[in-house]
């Protein structure tokens, strides 16, 4: 099995519901910015829910819409993709390609009847550890309001 | 054996009678899709008259997705469990006769050989089978061309002929006779019997092809140019096999979820490239040509050699549905009849 699918299979299993339901989140992070941002948040001991499962990708441009769809198929309550701010891509333009693809993925989810709030796309830089933690908290609250995702089938 | 009739406005009583004794399996109407065979729930509307396209009864006897084995590896111990379907008396209503005959083919594969398939057998063993002859035959049917359909009556326990406001119910086995003798049905009149006979003749003579009555299994040639012609057009989807009442090839796959493994089977078809592809890369049917040939030869030659029955029963689904209009009837006429005629001329 590839790294991605292994992660998806295992993570969902581990995120078996604790006493109080907490939304499970699949976060796909660019190695150069948001992943570093998450690292920063961690080393600064910032608090954010532990039900986030992080998949590191070399660039938000590597984010195949299938990753997002697979996340929902496996029953994550929310999926999030974070990349470098426009103009800041480590590979010059990967996030520009990602931008179109992700925008259309949002539209596809809408067409499929999945609440748009369950998918979140944002630009987060390596220095924005604070913002990373805040985003996760915010997304978690939003998902708590929405309630558990009832799955694709 | 006394035949009887079911007035259509009394269908509810008849189904009620059956429900007390059996699990009823019947085609259930679906929006924008062919009716599907399933165990009848209260809210379900059965499609009893057989006039519209329907999925095949194999979808019930051999589900598209069936868990064969569950393996639980939690706590370092390995438990292997075999979830068999419940054995209970079942009655299957309103399969097309061609589909009911196709169950004979499935029986040969799943019950007759050295190993009995326990999953199939649980559903099949206590099944009473009633086929339907609809008021009008579908344009694509050609059952009378593949076999002597009179002999098919013994493959079912009874037949329901759609005579407009009523079904004429004919029993063709002891089980069937017992059932209709005690069921809330009316007596058949001579007019009913005459109408039924007429309908039977229509079924027998429906879509008769030039190859009818010819021993196809003797005449299908390995090196016929038709295979190449079919392979050219074929887009290699699996519709003809998946919608076929007698195609039963399957794949077995494992799925892991945490400490649990589910081993399931699902449909597969000789039309897919990876069907015979081996781990080390060799594929005995590496191109579409042998795959197209396999489908026809399997039905008309190999299964005849193996079981003495023809694998195709002329239900016409592949004829109607093939995206590129590869018509099995045309192929058979071309491969068998034309060379025979040419031989006769020469």
């Amino acid at each position, binding site marked *: 099995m590839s790294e991605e699918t292994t992660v998806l299979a295992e993570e969902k299993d581990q995120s078996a519901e604790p006493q109080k339901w907490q939304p499970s989140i699949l976060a796909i992070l660019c190695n150069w910015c948001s992943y570093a941002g998450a690292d920063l948040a961690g080393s600064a001991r910032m608090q954010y829910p532990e039900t986030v499962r992080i998949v590191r990708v070399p660039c938000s441009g590597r984010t195949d819409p299938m990753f997002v769809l697979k996340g929902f198929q496996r029953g994550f309550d929310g999926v999030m993709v974070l990349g470098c701010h426009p103009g800041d891509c480590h590979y010059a333009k990967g996030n520009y390609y990602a931008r179109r693809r992700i925008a259309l993925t949002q539209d596809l989810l809408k067409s499929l009847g999945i609440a748009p709030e369950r998918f979140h796309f944002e630009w987060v830089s390596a220095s924005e550890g604070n913002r990373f933690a805040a985003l996760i908290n915010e997304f978690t609250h939003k998902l708590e309001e929405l309630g558990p995702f009832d799955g694709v089938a | 054996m006394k035949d009887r009739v079911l007035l259509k406005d009394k269908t509810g009583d008849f189904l009620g009678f059956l429900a007390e004794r059996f699990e009823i399996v019947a085609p259930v109407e679906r929006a924008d899709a062919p009716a599907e065979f399933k165990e009848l729930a209260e809210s379900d509307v059965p499609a009893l008259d057989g006039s519209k396209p329907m999925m095949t009864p194999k979808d019930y006897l051999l589900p598209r997705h069936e868990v*064969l*084995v569950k*393996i639980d*590896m939690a706590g370092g111990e*390995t438990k*292997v469990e*075999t979830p068999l379907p419940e054995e209970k008396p079942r009655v299957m209503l309103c399969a097309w006769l061609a589909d009911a005959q196709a169950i004979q083919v499935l029986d040969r*594969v*799943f019950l007759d*050989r*050295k*190993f*009995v*398939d*326990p999953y199939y057998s649980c559903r099949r063993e206590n099944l009473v089978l009633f086929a339907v002859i609809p008021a009008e035959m579908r344009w694509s049917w050609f059952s009378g061309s593949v076999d002597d359909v009179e002999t098919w009556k013994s493959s079912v326990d009874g037949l329901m002929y759609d005579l407009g406001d009523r079904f004429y119910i004919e029993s063709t086995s002891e089980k069937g006779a017992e059932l209709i003798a005690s069921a809330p049905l009316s007596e058949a009149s001579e007019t009913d019997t005459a109408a039924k006979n007429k309908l039977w003749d229509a079924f027998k003579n429906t879509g008769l092809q030039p190859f009818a009555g010819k021993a196809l299994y003797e005449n299908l040639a*390995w090196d016929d140019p038709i295979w190449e012609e079919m392979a050219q057009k074929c887009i290699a989807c699996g519709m003809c096999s998946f919608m076929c009442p007698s195609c*039963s*090839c*399957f*794949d*077995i*796959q*494992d799925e*892991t979820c945490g400490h649990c*493994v589910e*081993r399931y*089977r699902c449909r*597969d078809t*000789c039309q897919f490239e990876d*069907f*015979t*592809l*081996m*781990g*080390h*890369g*060799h594929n*005995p*049917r590496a191109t579409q040509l*042998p795959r197209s040939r*396999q489908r026809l*030869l*399997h039905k008309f*030659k*190999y*299964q005849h*050699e*193996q079981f003495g029955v023809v694998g195709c029963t002329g239900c016409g689904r592949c004829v109607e549905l093939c995206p590129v209009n590869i018509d099995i009837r045309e192929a058979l006429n071309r491969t068998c009849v034309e060379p025979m005629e040419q031989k006769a001329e020469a």
Partner: protein
Amino acid sequence: MIDSQTTNNPITTLPYTPIPATLTKIVTESWDTKTFHAEFNDEALKDSFTYEPGQFQQVSVFGVGECTFCLTSSPTRKGHIEFSVKKVGSVTSALHDMSEGDLVGIRAPLGNFFPYNEWKGKNLLFAGGGIGMAPMRSLLNFCLDNRDDYGEITTIYGARTPGDLCFAYEFEEWNSKGKLHLTVDVGDDDWKDHVGHVPGYLKELAPSPDNAIAITCGPPIMIKFILPEFASLGFKPEQIYTTLEMKMKCGVGKCGRCNIGSKLVCLDGPVFSLAEIDELPPEF
């Protein structure tokens, strides 16, 4: 017919259900091939389990899938079964990653077997290439263990390089109780035996077809060239046996992918005589 039917082997009633077995020993045969020894966890089955040379089994790595292997051990050597695995796909790779003590699932015995009863008193000639030795090893050891039933037992075994030869630990036995001829395509500094392909070596050795049965197994290319050699030595199709390989899933005649014409390799095979193969369409 063999009597797995009368034993307590669940395969007769639940043919898809793998039986847990533990890998007791793993032998590295060559850079890409390992031989696994397995014992059923169920003690009663372990004792009663019986099979015939030539039969095969389905081995499960739970969660990855199932794969077909011949039973390469001889039924005369009881207590455990053996299978040799060349690393090619996902299941075989998973097996290669396993250690002694790990658990597998086994469905066996499946398929037909070599008609050794009809061969009593005859000379047997084994000609194998590479991993093709695995299905023949079961029969070879079986015949060596019933040595008095047979005439000469000669083995010609070839591989690409000396390092590719499997079962080296049994060569001595094969050569003392019978006669063993080894050959490799490419030798090395230590290689003292024959160098060349199996078909060519067969021609050189020129065994007599009189009162003999030839059993051959190996890669398709070897089979292609060895059959004419047998023919020119005077072997008739009825005297030549091999095992065929097709993709299998169920192993019990249901899943429908291992047919060659109207024969199913999993039920009617894997052992076929050349006379039988000549009747089949050329699609394997």
